[in-house]
């Protein structure tokens, strides 16, 4: 099982500050929790299968003594088969509960259906630039400045093809569509500068369609809005 041996090595190599898991907002924090939670549940599955696999392959391997052995003609076993229908169903039920809760909490919705309150920023994507327009009309390209704490509401719309807005440390992706305006919430971001990028393949300049997301204090945000 060399791949199991490789795993801790790789984790050591990258350290524990994997960007998506090292979250800097409540939104990303919930997502990181779900990732770890589902990963732990799935680790159980991998372990069970690996143990059975290694045991059976080793124990029932072909040997000289068992050369002419004709195994018993087993057709199946209804109890065992029921067990591996019920077991996974239970495991998935445990996984489904937080999944449904957070999906309802976090799924991006149409602008017209959004009822949340917070600091709004209009995000416009085009091949291959981001434009961020704040409440007072202040506009900047490829640099998003938002205040710490509270709720940030991003109103996203594309000018041309489909793009996807992603700041790994602040939260998951939301597609930026040409035909509709979506709203995505980022809750309680912490001060810092994070990299953001386009995550949906959008053409020639996709790789370099990056921006900077800067979370600043409320005072700094206010002065940012007012500076020319």
């Amino acid at each position, binding site marked *: 099982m*060399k*791949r199991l041996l*490789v795993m801790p090595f*790789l984790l050591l190599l*990258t350290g524990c*500050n*994997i*960007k*998506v898991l090292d979250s800097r907002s409540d939104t990303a924090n919930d*997502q990181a929790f*779900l*990732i770890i939670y*589902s990963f732990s549940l799935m680790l159980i*599955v*991998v372990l069970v*299968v*690996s143990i059975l696999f290694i045991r059976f*392959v080793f124990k029932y*391997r*072909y040997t000289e003594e068992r050369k002419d052995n*004709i*195994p*018993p*003609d*087993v*057709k*199946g*076993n209804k109890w*065992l088969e029921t067990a*591996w229908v019920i077991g*996974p*169903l239970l495991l*998935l039920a445990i*996984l*489904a509960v937080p*999944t449904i809760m957070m*999906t*309802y909490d*976090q*799924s*991006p*919705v*149409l602008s017209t259906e959004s009822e949340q309150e917070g600091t709004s920023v209009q995000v416009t994507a085009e091949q291959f630039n981001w434009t961020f327009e704040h409440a007072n009309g202040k506009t900047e390209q490829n640099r998003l400045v938002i205040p710490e704490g509270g709720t940030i509401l991003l109103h996203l719309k594309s000018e041309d*093809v*489909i793009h*996807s807005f*992603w700041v790994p440390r602040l939260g*998951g*992706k*939301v597609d930026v*569509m*040409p*035909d509709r305006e*979506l709203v995505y919430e980022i809750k309680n971001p912490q001060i810092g500068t994070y*990299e953001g*990028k386009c*995550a949906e*393949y959008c053409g*020639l300049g*996709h790789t370099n369609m990056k921006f900077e997301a800067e979370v600043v204090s409320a005072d700094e945000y206010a002065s940012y809005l007012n500076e020319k």
Partner: protein
Amino acid sequence: MKFTLFGVNIMLPSDVLAAWVFTLLLGAVVVFLVLKKKRLGLIWEYMVTTNHRKIGILYILFGIIYFFRAGLDALFIRTQLAFPNNDFWVFQGEKYNEVFTTHGTMMIFFVAMPLLLGLMNTVVPLQIGARDLAFPFLNAVGFWLFFFGSIFFNISFFLNMTPEIGWTGYAPLSTEQFTPGAGSDFYIFGLQISGLGTIFTALNLIVTIVRHRAPGMKMTRMPLFAWTSLITSFLILIAFTVLAIALYLLMFDRLFGAGFFSGTEGNPIYWQHLFWIFGHPEVYILALPAFGIFSDVISTFSRKRVFGYPIMVLSVALIGFLGFMVWAHHMFTVGLGPMANTFFAITTMLIAVPTGIKVFNWLFTMRLGVIRFTTPMLFSLGFIPSFVMGGVTGVMLSVSAADFQFHDTHFVVAHFHYVIIASTILGIFAGLYYWYPKITGYVLDEKLGRWHFWTFLIGFHLTFFPMHITGLEGMPRRVYTYDDSGGLAELNFMSTIGAFLMGVSMLFAIWNVYKTYKEGRKVGNDPWDGRTLEWSVASPAPEHTFDPMPVVEGIDSFWFAKSAGKKMPVTDQVRATPLEVQSILPFLIGSTLFFLSLGLTFSWYWLSILSAFILFTLLVVRSLKDEREDHYGRRK
């Protein structure tokens, strides 16, 4: 580089030029060898054949050729990504976008599909006691449509007009406004023509399996590969029809200014829905036949029947059914709303249940058995843990709120390569090693087979395991470069080494085929101590099989008769057999669609009209002739 030919200035990038030179040289070698060994007759024989085994060989041959072509694309991708801020050859920007588009499209449509269809073509009739597919002529048409579709897609590269819209072809990027070149048209028509062929073959397999089983071979006694082929064929019938509709609408958008996927009336979401209603079942179209192969191989080399046969069949059917209810899990970030996201998260999780049933049943098939580590069995054993790793990341991806992070990153790339390579590719290798004697009469070398297996498996894990982490480190799909942060450099370099190791492993496979051809050991009917009917006929399978026709008395009837030291009972009461014909019409029908598409792509409408007219004439010619009349007399 630039040069002038017949007064036209032609600009060719160095990669395209290299492809021309390489292809012409290779072509010259092939032509030389064919002429020297006087094998033109053989080529003609395969062009006019309607025999299921020969058509199967053609599918497999071209599947493998394209595997090398698309594998080379993968090596270009990995070389470009080997180091941060790397500049390898021409593969930045546009060329990189082209190379990942062709890699994905070809691996799915022109590698995995033909290899699986080839194995089904060759093996399914032999497993169920049919003498050929129900419609041999249609079978040949299906192959030549695949062939010309794939050639059509491939010539785009030589004309330097490669599509660059990703294998998913998302609108509006794929509409004329954003990709005005001919590249996207090559994508549309290449897939359309070959998809049509796939639909024909699926129909053919369904009728064959329902109508042409040997006496006593009830549906409940069929080997699992035949079962999975049947269910896969139903999936193809529905999914590829949806793809054909999507491509048709996109064609109208591009060529005739319709607005299905853009503008005020249309909507880019429609493309995603149509594409994934095809695309997700397609994943199961690739995986299910492989599951069938593993079931047969594991059972044979454990010397035991498949554990829980009824639930194995049921779970395949369930996977197929659920496969049509999960497509929007590719669209969690599109903004369909919390309701849709929850529904598709739950259905996706549910698929894990029948898949889990299969994994445990495979494990318990081996329990108490006598496990022989032959090459086909090694590939099947490698499949189980690798596939489970891909399966559990699939469940992680189904957690929709977590998927907002995973979506379109290298984590997803890792996931789908884990499931597709572990199931489809390892399954195809297992199947090819397993049935190679039945196809050619020779058994492949075991030692080289082991080398192939171990280098491939290690290379595969080395390539894709680190991608889970690079994805979580914020590396999106389909980018040609990255900055050195968070261990991205080391992890990507590891992936590149793994990819080259997989490349090396394929050289072992080729060496194996060559060695077997030169000094191979001729084998009898039953080299593996098999359990199912295909091992009762001669190797290679002759054109006229099952004479006299065996009578099947239960699951693995052949094996139980053999271990009791008896012969299977036979009968001469058989259904009318499909008749083989020699005809060049299937080849010509395929070629007319090729020229029809070429005309539409470049707006040479006279060529399209002419091809359509010839196609219609060929169909009329075909419908005037029924070869069964000479043999069975006119229908009353």
